[in-house]
């Protein structure tokens, strides 16, 4: 009946989704390797009541038409893969990727997931695993008698064995990167899955063409900027309020119409 009611409602819904997303960003402000996301909005289709360029009654061409929009819709929730801050931990199995790339994780169902969260551990067999116990791919086993682990910028893993003088190389880290990382789907637990939109993974060694290098003893923190998110939250909340005022105004107009007939 009154179009603006629905138009404003679309605005409120859009801002609600915006707030949901900001809440998730802020909830993950301390999650290692977390990448923030952002809701992008688009205006909805327009109803053209009068085409621009139609001749008017006086015979001249009216330069503008009448176009009335129908509100807004969230177009995409885009994940932003900017680099997060580094936190020094000193733990030899905490790794960050400086630059592009993801660690490859082998899931129990045999599929591969990708992560920027480099807080690795050893399991009972000495294998390098994530906090959930999923092994890093390709698998790397650390011998029981290793006294020191060294991971180079190019991803070579070497250990110092008890009683030996020379370090021994035991494996090579491989990274994956994607034509469109924003197209990865997030499956929670800091893991991403490849999709048609992301393109197929390109595998390579750290420091090679296009890949970032590895830094040992650091963690990549989330790339959420608290100030930015708080400002986004304020604007989203106000936008929500403004749209609720539009609904009030439209409602008042509707009431005015119903009071027309006495």
């Amino acid at each position, binding site marked *: 009946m009154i179009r603006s009611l629905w138009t404003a409602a679309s605005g409120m819904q859009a801002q609600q989704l915006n707030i949901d997303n900001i809440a998730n960003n802020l909830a993950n402000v301390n999650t290692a390797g977390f990448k923030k996301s952002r809701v992008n*909005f688009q*205006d909805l289709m327009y109803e053209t009541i009068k085409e621009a360029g139609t001749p008017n009654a006086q015979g001249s061409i009216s330069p503008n038409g009448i176009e009335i929009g129908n509100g807004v819709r969230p177009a*995409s929730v885009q994940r932003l893969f900017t680099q997060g801050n580094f936190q020094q931990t000193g733990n030899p199995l905490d790794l960050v990727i400086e630059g592009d790339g993801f660690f490859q994780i082998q899931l129990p169902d045999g599929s591969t997931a990708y992560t920027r969260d480099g807080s690795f551990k050893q399991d009972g067999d000495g294998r390098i695993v994530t906090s959930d116990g999923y092994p890093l791919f390709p698998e790397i086993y650390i011998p029981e008698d290793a006294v020191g682990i060294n991971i180079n910028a190019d991803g070579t893993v070497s250990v110092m064995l008890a009683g030996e003088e020379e370090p021994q190389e035991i494996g090579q880290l491989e990274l994956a990167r994607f034509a469109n990382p924003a197209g990865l789907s997030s499956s929670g637990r800091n893991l991403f899955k490849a999709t048609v939109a992301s393109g197929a993974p390109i595998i390579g060694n750290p420091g090679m063409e296009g890949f970032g290098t590895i830094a040992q003893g650091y963690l990549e923190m989330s790339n959420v900027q608290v100030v930015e998110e708080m400002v986004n939250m304020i604007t989203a909340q106000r936008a929500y309020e403004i749209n609720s005022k*539009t609904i009030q*105004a439209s409602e*008042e107009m509707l009431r005015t119409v119903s009071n027309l007939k006495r």
Partner: protein
Amino acid sequence: MLNGLYTVARGMIAFKRENDVLANNLANVNTTGFKSEQVVYQSFPEILMSRLDESGEHFIGSKGTGSKVVETFTNFQQGHLQKTDNPLDLAIEGPGFFVVQTPWGIAYTRSGHFTLNQFGQLVTEDGYPVLGENGPIETFGKPIAVGEDGIIEIDGVQSDRIRLVDFADLQQLEKVGKNLYRAGGGIRETRAEGLVRQGYLEGSNVNVILGMTQLITATRLYEVSQKMIQSQDETLSKAVNDVGRTNG
């Protein structure tokens, strides 16, 4: 007698339409690159009134017949630039539009939150390729740098230039939603003077204070019109029920 009713009713229709437009502006207060709209009122042509008697026709004055919304005017004023640090976010400072290849032809946008598709092409969030001077922009999945002049460097190597266009008469552009504009027949692209800013997005140019004020005004004028209809209705009622009373 009834003419007054129609005049005011036309006004109410116009205010309702203005309310629709304002609602759309306010709904898009957070939409990247959105350009606000305003309605333009025009009065209906005035009519001449004359009196006829034995001596002929006497002109007695003119009368307005109300107003209507004749057009919606898009305000192409620059929106504020918002820093995002995302290398795929582009904003235009100054006049100009990005050119987008859609399935129904060329479209234009000021909304620069671009992304990559699975082939490494720069696309809008709907997957429509953004055009450079040599066609779709390929990044090959490598880092992209865009200069102020729109020149694109892929991994340090200059590859293409963002196609920016402008129009002599922006009001001829048709809004199609999805932050896109379409140019109807007869409008020619001109060179754009705007600068490209990488890592920024252009916010919506909706002026909230103005929008809310206009919303209040439209709502109140609507109410005033309603009161006028009511009072005219009362007059009419008097004429019909009191003046015309036959049983005295």
